[in-house]
């Protein structure tokens, strides 16, 4: 009886999917925690500071040399940060619209994690494909979910019933809608070349023919800049812009509710880095490592390659933050609507012509 259940393909599918979801969720949460640390450390180095170097549990300091070293690198800081978020007073101001005020942080986080479902983070491990959901319309699913992410921010801004969060929410909704269009259009040219919306097949194509960033540099630039705008990172962090809007949509939030916005922002950053690796940098493949893994070790190596590429892109995200000052709002709209969208459209037309001529 029991053997029957275990050999049932539906049961196996559910079991493996659950395992993959759990592992991906855990890895992404760890990544978020340490991405914050890396961001703080790199920012500190760029600004001639040292960054977090003091937090350490007393027991860890007992380890001879390593304890002090880990303390100096700030390896325990994420734990302290997390603990602080949990222990802080969870304050709901009077006159907020309570239901939406409580709902908004959750709505901000969920899409960020849902996008990770279709990203192939490795080739195969054993008999399993290393992707949670191998959808035929993978990229469309991602865009659909990403477009829902704006609700968390808009509702947070509106429900706070305060002027700065409201301005932040309004700005972000306009910004995210504008850049979503450019982002979606930049990707179309990739699929014209590959001829498939499935992300697994997209990576296999790149493993065979070379990375798509070489074929579509314009699309990559548009996608990269739009990703900055979609994740509300500097130089496009108009929705938060500490200096003008105090903190934008999360001004009125504290404790774990604030932490959820923070988590969502970094999870978005991870998701868009992973997306860029998949779309433009060949996912788990390297130019000489194009075959889906046959051994367990090979599968793990592929996952490692994917994560390494992702980390490089995340460092780009962190570094660019200090390279450019914040855009003015009209400049942002101008860049989105009057440069990127026409450029993306021209790119689609040029690619379509190229594909049609080559396939003749």
């Amino acid at each position, binding site marked *: 009886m029991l053997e029957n259940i275990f050999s049932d393909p539906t049961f196996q599918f559910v079991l493996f999917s659950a395992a993959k979801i759990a592992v991906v969720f855990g890895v992404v949460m760890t990544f978020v925690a340490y991405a914050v640390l890396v961001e703080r450390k790199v920012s500190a180095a760029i600004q001639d500071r040292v960054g977090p170097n003091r937090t350490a549990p007393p027991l860890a300091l007992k380890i001879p040399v390593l304890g002090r070293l880990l303390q100096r690198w700030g390896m325990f800081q994420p734990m302290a940060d997390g603990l602080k978020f949990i222990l802080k007073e969870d304050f709901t101001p009077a006159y907020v619209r309570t239901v939406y005020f409580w709902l908004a942080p959750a709505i901000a986080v969920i899409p960020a994690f849902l996008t990770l479902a279709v990203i192939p983070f490795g080739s195969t491990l054993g008999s399993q494909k290393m992707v949670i959901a191998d959808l035929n*319309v993978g990229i*469309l699913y991602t865009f659909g979910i*990403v477009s829902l992410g704006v609700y968390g921010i808009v*509702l947070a801004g*509106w429900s706070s019933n305060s002027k700065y969060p409201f301005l932040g929410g309004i700005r972000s*909704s306009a910004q995210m809608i504008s850049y979503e269009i450019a982002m979606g259009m930049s990707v179309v040219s990739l699929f014209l070349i590959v001829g498939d919306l499935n992300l697994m097949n997209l990576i296999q194509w790149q493993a065979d023919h070379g990375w798509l960033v070489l074929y579509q540099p314009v699309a990559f630039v548009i996608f990269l800049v739009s990703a900055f705008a979609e994740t509300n990172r500097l130089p496009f962090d108009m929705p938060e812009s500490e200096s003008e809007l105090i903190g934008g949509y999360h001004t009125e939030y504290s404790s774990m509710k604030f932490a959820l916005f923070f988590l969502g922002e970094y999870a978005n950053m991870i998701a868009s880095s992973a997306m860029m690796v998949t779309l433009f940098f060949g996912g788990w493949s390297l130019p000489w490592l194009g075959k889906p893994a046959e051994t367990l070790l090979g599968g793990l190596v592929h996952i490692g390659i994917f994560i390494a590429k992702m980390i490089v892109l995340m460092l780009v995200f962190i570094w660019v933050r200090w390279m450019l000052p914040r855009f003015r709002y009209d400049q942002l709209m101008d860049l989105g609507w009057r440069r990127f969208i026409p450029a993306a459209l021209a790119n689609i037309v040029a690619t379509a012509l190229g594909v049609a001529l080559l396939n003749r």
Partner: protein
Amino acid sequence: MPQLTDLLFYAFAGMTLLFGFLCVANPLSRNPVTSAMFLVLTIISMAGLFVLLHAFFLAAVQILVYAGAVMVLFLFVIMLLDLKEEERRKLNKVAVGLGSLAVLGLAGVLVRVLAGATPLIAAGSKPVEGSTRELGRILFQSYLLPFEILSILLLVAMVGAILLSKKELK
């Protein structure tokens, strides 16, 4: 034993109807933002129905366009307008009566048509996979003219919107 897909169909269909009703006539809140959010939920449940029909492309586009873009603009406008009066407004009894009459009539027509309809695909045949490639073929080969006419209609609407939003014409 009912199939899982059947159960999911009833769940999504029920959710669509429930959220749709709450969007139009919410007994708990007359806040326009609440209505808009229920409309978003209705759209998402409908996307679920499309998934059950294996129309993945349609489901994704439904969420991307309606839930992700159109409804965000709706919310944008609702939040910018002062809608305090809307919340306080009394229900117009004549309008409610006429509206329910219209709904009943429409429902009657729909039920009669559906009862008399024969299934397009005979039961047991292979379901049509809603692949993007097939959809593109159909749109750009069989239905090219209607597609182009629609796009011109959209263009006209766009030009009209820009003209209307311009305060002074030069």
